[in-house]
């Protein structure tokens, strides 16, 4: 049984920030939703409340960074780049400011619908020069991403998981290095964020059918561990990417770019939102509906191998971790 960690970010941020007086915690009226309410209450001198005013918050953070502070901005992923995109470019990214954008509830992990679901954030952020993009996939990465982000000379965008988060990994977040979760000869599966946990649910049924899966977990999306990907992709019968994001411009796209540039000629299936907006509903419901789940992954693998793998949903259930996750919908926003 996989360990579930309660609010790993809350504890990790407090430990991290209190040891570094130049770190400031900025918030835009979603303080408890971003698990920094305890930090605010215990360390008010390191906390700046800027209200529902993201444009000002981003530019203000650029000014703080100029003076040697390292602001960590806390709000939902969507609010960090949609409304305040111009500020992100001109007040932060162009000048390569050390501003850390901590984005909560990425993709369809929120029941908030279109207004709250950051489904194209990676695509947008990838196009910004000087930007680094990190994405957490488990409790260990949430606990260890802060030091990684803080070491980067320039702006960093992080997709953060909150609430009950499974612990999948025993080693800390390593910058720009793919994690190898399994090694097999038939297909390469590349996943990120919450989709990695989902892909792990398919591991046993695939193994039982003698499908050799090389599974890579991605936690640094920009820059990207190009060599690690090429090495794993060579000689495979097919590649599947699975991401909590639109397939346009995110993990699937960047893998496609590298495969094409290297001339590997391996077939690729990109799973994720198929160029569509989603809507407000629970995470398991949306992952099933939009083909971000274990079943979508094994179907894609079957197609690449020309085999009917015939895996019943019940087989995935045995590995399912989210009995507690289903309660997460109640926490809403």
């Amino acid at each position: 049984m996989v360990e579930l960690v309660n609010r790993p970010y809350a504890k990790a941020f407090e430990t991290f920030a209190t040891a570094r007086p130049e770190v400031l915690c900025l918030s835009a009226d979603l303080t408890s939703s971003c698990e920094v309410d305890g930090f605010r209450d215990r360390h008010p001198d390191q906390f700046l409340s800027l209200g529902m005013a993201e444009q000002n918050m981003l530019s203000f953070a650029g000014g703080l960074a100029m003076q040697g502070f390292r602001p960590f901005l806390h709000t939902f992923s969507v609010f960090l780049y949609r409304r305040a995109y111009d500020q992100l470019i001109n007040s932060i990214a162009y000048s390569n400011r050390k501003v850390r954008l901590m984005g909560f509830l990425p993709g369809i992990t929120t029941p908030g619908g279109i207004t709250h679901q950051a489904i194209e954030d990676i695509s947008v952020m990838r196009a910004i020069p000087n930007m680094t993009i990190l994405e957490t996939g488990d409790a260990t990465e949430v606990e260890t991403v802060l030091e990684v982000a803080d070491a980067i000379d320039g702006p960093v965008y992080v997709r953060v998981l909150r609430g009950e988060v499974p612990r999948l990994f025993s080693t800390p977040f390593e910058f720009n290095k793919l994690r190898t979760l399994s090694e097999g000869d038939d297909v390469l599966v590349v996943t990120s964020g919450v989709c990695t946990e989902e892909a792990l649910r398919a591991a046993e049924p695939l193994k039982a059918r003698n499908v050799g899966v090389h599974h890579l977990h991605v936690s640094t999306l920009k820059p990207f561990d190009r060599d690690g990907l090429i090495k794993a992709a060579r000689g495979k019968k097919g590649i599947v990417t699975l991401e909590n994001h639109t397939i346009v411009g995110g993990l699937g796209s960047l893998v496609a770019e590298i495969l094409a540039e290297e001339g590997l000629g391996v077939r690729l299936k990109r799973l994720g939102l198929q160029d569509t907006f989603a809507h407000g509903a629970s995470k398991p419901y949306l992952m099933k509906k939009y083909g971000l789940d274990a079943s979508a992954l094994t179907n894609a693998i079957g197609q690449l191998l020309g085999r009917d793998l015939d895996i019943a949903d019940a087989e995935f259930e045995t590995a399912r971790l989210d009995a507690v996750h289903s309660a997460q919908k109640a926490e809403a926003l």
Partner: protein
Amino acid sequence: MSIPNCQTTEDVAAGIRRRVFLHSMRNNGGYLSQACSAAESLALLYNEVLKLGEPTLPKVPLPFAGVPSAHNPDAFTGAGYHGPFAPEYDRFIISPAHYALVIYSALIQMGRMDEHALDHFNRDGGSVEMIGAEHSPGMEVTTGSLAQGLSMGSGIAWARKRKGEPGKVWVYMSDGEFQEGQTWETLAAMSYHNIDNIRVIVDVNRQQCDGAMSSVLDLGDLPARVAAFGATTCSINGHDLEAMRDAANSAEPGKPLVILANTSPFQGMPYLQKRFPRLHYVRFKSKAEREEMQTAIAADLGVDLAEI
């Protein structure tokens, strides 16, 4: 400040207008009306108010050294013409980046840049860009996408206050920026966080790209609106140096200071009134038009036509 300076602020203002006029005539157009409205504010700031150290960049502007990145140690900003970053010195953030020609002229008039620095204006590969970039002389941050300068200045001011630095943060703005929502977000934040080491001077010339602000999106009683957000607000004649000196000294503890300098976009160049309301960027449609303007404004400013 160790730069020898025997000019009166009136002389500096006249010098700014003269330099912007000469450059615009020699280059078939320019941001003339901004020199008219801003000359006294900028002259007062550079000549009397700002506490700046000696420039750290060469008097002759450097070529562009590439965009900032973790891999470009050569990138620089135009802050060097405002002197070194040190706790006792002020910072000066210029938000309307299209005032660049006026700023460059002020820096030259103050001896902070070379007499011929405008020869580099708008030249490919140079740093003296037409719309000031953060590597352009006098520009400390990336502005020009309007309303961001005030937010960045507020962040700088908050940080300097937290560190106990005595230096202030001055921000120069145009009144059109009060059409942007971000400006009001920032005013609210400055008041809430009691950022009182920031001083804002706004060129209230009531002009914008499309023409008179009253014909685009009028801001009504701007002083009342700004004051309602909690700033110490002074609405004064932006060409009256004595009134501006008083305003610059009127900051109150716990509150940001906003000076609304009401100005004329043809102050010192009355001929420009003929161009109203298209004053944002003055260019010439014919040789005759250019010569008429040249003769008239040269007479207004007491400039010898042979200088052009």
